[in-house]
């Protein structure tokens, strides 16, 4: 069963022209957002995207763009009110910090 969140909000974009068809995005996506057809990847379930950015990070052609972030209301509120609290819960990737260039 696939959990569904809000519709038409996520920032995931893909430039089909740049895709080499390596299929890496399909492999790393934990939400099965992509499908493979005509030797390239296609975004076929954008609403399922959780903006983890695994696809964009692992795309050798930089064909994918997405705002990487943590879907955590607690972090959003902490950021909004400029507060610091416990973060990095086991399942939460905390922080709206800039992610260092790995």
């Amino acid at each position, binding site marked *: 069963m696939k959990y569904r969140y809000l519709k038409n909000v996520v920032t995931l974009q893909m430039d089909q022209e740049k895709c080499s068809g390596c299929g890496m995005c399909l492999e790393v996506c934990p939400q099965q957002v992509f499908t493979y057809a005509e030797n390239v990847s296609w975004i076929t379930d954008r609403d399922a995207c959780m903006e983890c950015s695994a696809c964009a990070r692992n795309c050798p052609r930089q064909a994918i763009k997405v705002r990487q972030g943590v879907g955590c209301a607690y972090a959003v509120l902490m950021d909004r009110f400029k507060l610091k609290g416990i*973060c990095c819960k*086991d*399942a939460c990737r905390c922080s709206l910090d800039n992610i260092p260039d790995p």
Partner: protein
Amino acid sequence: MSKASHKGIKLQVVDDRPLTPCCPGEQPAVSPVNISEANWVVGQLETNTGPVYRVATALDRSDLWGAVKARWGVGRMNYTVPPGLYAIGAPDENAAVLVSANYKLSFDSLRRELSGLNLWLLVLDTNGINVWCAAGKGSFGTAEVARMVGRTGLARLVSHRTLILPQLAAPGVAAHEVRRRCGFNVVYGPVRAADLPAFLRAGNKADAAMRRPSFTLRDRLVLTPLELTSLIKPLSGFALFLFLLNLSAALLKGNPLALLPLLGHTIDHLVPFVVAVLVGAVLVPALLPYLPGRALAWKGLVLGVLWAFAYTALTPGAESWLRNTAHFLIIPSITAFIGLNFTGSTTYTSLSDVIKETKIAFPLIAMAAGLGLIALVAAYFV
């Protein structure tokens, strides 16, 4: 090999990188473990790059107790394994290399699945944060993978050039960049450690099910203790607030001041809210797939309204209309807020979605809670 025989041997892999705290204001994660005496070390392997500790694949009582404590937030930010190279079984130059985080819970859930296998285990320095979180923050990143490959002399130890990373490390690691920097090919393994033996047997191939994070009842409830511990403080403050209200009401109305009845009233008045917290922290995660709507605050709201109705039905005529109004405003606010907060514990919410939901839900929750508090206070003095 007995534990005593290798006691005091200098650790092969020493991390001299300055330890940076995970979040501002937090203590840096310094490992409290003296590795040669760690309960999870079962010997040592001599290799051409120096001695490598061998890791047990069975968890013992102290591992399980450590997991319980971490789940309740005790010492959780300091529950780490020293980064470095470890051995599972008796690996040789052809054995596969698994890469993981140095959060002890992650390390334990990995090694317990590897019994009977011969592998190398490369533990990165992720500041004691689990794989997914560390990848999101970049500490489980391309640079750290390349750094640890270099530091451990992995290229001299194994004849192949393949690293198996957990799939959930992909938000932080660019496979093509790792190859460019240290010559190793990154293969993304399954999401769950339990699927690793099957993945390895299949020649490093993951099937579709191995690529999906599960979010079962157990997964949804595993963070509930942590949520509850974080709610103890505000709930205690609220209990004190109710006690003071009871006290002031008694003073104003000239009722006799007796501690026991005052405490009794306070507890009576606290019950619907304590239950609301439990509804939010336990029932919302437990019933998540069955609750209507998509927004998590909405799911919380639905259960909160149900509980407010149930409480009113259970106490017919016992409460004033003001108090009932307060219950109908505050209880759904509590459950909706805890539901909103659960976004950070799910496997599927994106930042853009959460910002949208928070912008709509939070002001409404704050307003309802504020009005509810006014009604609650008024109920004591009308």
